[in-house]
């Protein structure tokens, strides 16, 4: 069971979100103020934090929680104007959802954040004919049960896709997060790596199904 610490002062929204998330299979601890959050965060896998709270505001609470437990992702919920909050909030928060949010969107964001910190509901992700086991860090071809072995960079690129599911990633974004360097115009390194990666995981590297090319923009892995 994934434990979510939910800090929200509005009773109507709070009870509805708690109920919805519990139906989706999360264990939700709901606090009405930031008090006691620092203690509760230790036993949580994710924090959903409202910006406007009585007493200490959400930003302050969030910063304290990050200090207490840096590895627990924080998802900010805000009903204020996005202009101010984005500048303010995203410095420590891992993601940001503006009210009125859709419950499905909230759940999707939670799932992405949990996956990024290695705490997804399911440890196995099926992508076409391959199965990725996140707890064992293995990729298995289900047609013959053989494990696919990737090189270091190929694995890093692949995992970057897994952590950003359904998101279109530009080659600059992928290069910079995998190599940790500024992307140089016209650099073909990433394309070469993706070609080799596709040769290993795609059924037919000529028409890839797992790593999709979005013409003119980048790549995407749908889940």
């Amino acid at each position, binding site marked *: 069971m994934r434990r979510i610490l939910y800090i929200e002062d509005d009773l109507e*929204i709070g009870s*509805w979100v708690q109920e919805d998330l519990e139906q989706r299979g999360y264990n939700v601890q709901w606090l009405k103020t930031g008090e006691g959050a620092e203690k509760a965060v230790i036993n949580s896998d994710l924090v959903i934090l409202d910006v406007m709270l009585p007493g200490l505001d959400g930003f302050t609470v969030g910063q304290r929680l990050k200090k207490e437990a840096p590895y627990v992702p924080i998802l900010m919920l805000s009903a204020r*104007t996005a202009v101010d909050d984005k500048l303010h909030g995203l410095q420590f928060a891992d993601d940001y959802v*503006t*009210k009125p949010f*859709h419950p499905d969107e909230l759940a999707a964001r939670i799932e992405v954040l949990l996956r990024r910190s290695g705490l997804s509901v399911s440890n196995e992700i099926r992508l076409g004919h391959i199965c990725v086991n996140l707890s064992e860090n293995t990729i298995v071809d289900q047609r013959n049960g053989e494990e696919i072995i990737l090189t270091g960079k190929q694995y890093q690129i692949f995992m970057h896709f897994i952590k950003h599911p359904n998101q*279109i990633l*530009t080659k600059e974004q992928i290069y910079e997060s995998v190599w940790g360097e500024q992307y140089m115009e016209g650099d073909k390194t990433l394309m070469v790596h993706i070609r080799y990666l596709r040769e290993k995981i795609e059924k037919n590297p000529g028409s890839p199904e797992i790593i999709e090319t979005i013409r003119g*923009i980048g790549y995407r892995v749908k889940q």
Partner: protein
Amino acid sequence: MKLKNSLLNQYLLIILFAIMIVPISFLGISILFFNYLPTDVEPSKYQNGTDLEAMWHEEAQSLAGASDDQINEKLTEIKKEYSEASMFWVDETGQTRERLPESLSVPPSWSPALTIDYMKKNRGLEVDPFTVVALIGKKKDEGFMILQVPRSAMLSAGQSLQERYSYAIILAVVAVLAIFIFISWIFFYKIRKRLLRLQQAMSSPAESGIPDTISVEKRDEIGQLEVSFNEMIHQLEISRVREKEEEMLRRQLIANLSHDLRTPLTTIRGHAFSLKKEALSDKGKESLDLIDNKIGYLGQLIENLLSYTLLTTGKYPYYPERTDMVRLVKTSFAAWYPVFEGAGFQMEVEFPETTFYWEVDPQRVERVLDNFYQNIYRHARNGAYIGVKIDAHLQEIFIEDHGPGMGGESIEKGAGIGLSIVSLMLKDMKLKWETETGEHGTMIKIRKRS
């Protein structure tokens, strides 16, 4: 007004002092002169020619009817008293008699012509020696006697001093003049220095953008100016603080308003979502979808409204930086790609390999692009086409759709405020957008304001 509080009075005093120094010093020197300097010198008995003349005539009178010996005796007596003077007398026959001193060169006998000539030569104020001629007795038949005093002996002590010290007087005048000029120079130099200090304080603002106050040392006109300057700085600081407070209040108000509007919307959406899980007719589900759709639209509208308020009052954050435009447009479209994909749009992108840079706020550019994408998604859905292209050479960004055009009817209105925001934001970043719109689509072009 006290003297130390007025530069004008101070300078008037300096000028007054300079004017008064002549008579005052004259008075001072005179006092010095008569009281201290030549205390040992008695007023000279030769000094006054009139006195000498009176004395000589009186003595001559007193010798009326005197014998020659008596006259000789008298002259010797006078000579003793007036040792500087020389004297002689001539008897009634015109013979020169007693001469004192003996060496005195005078004619031995006096004809009337010689006498007259002598008298003529020794007349006047300047003639040296000073000569007095007196007839002996009253009857004018007893001869005459002559007294001669060298002019040099007749000088007063003051006159001799004056001669001795005349260069010192010139020197003193020059010195007084020099001192006056020097004092004036110091006076104006100090004023200038203080004015420059003030000018410097005014033209060098502190970090806050307002100059610092300066210390007031004197209470004169410049001091008052400094006090006024400090007062002005104080006023500026107060108004700056007030302005900040008002800005804070406005932001707070907008944040609260946004919060108060969005919170119930969230609740409504939550309940609509819960309702959808109940057993409903198709029509009921359709209604819920419409509610959900409208809630999303309302949320967007609130955001736009508040952004618009912030923009028009100049309170919208603006952090321009050198931005890779191709990358920015590409990333922003990547986020919208799934939305258009889901709505069945045909997408065409053309991003060049080489990029170009603009000095813009990337957050704002994203917001602008989002607004265009949103409009296309909402209003140009029946065209089912979106094209995003960049011309790196001309530095132009194109967004194209095949919708009914901006003049066309759309199911959802309210694009106006979104486009106003776009215009305001682009204007701040020295960009502009042009649009070609018709029944078969719209082409938006973003480029630099030329």
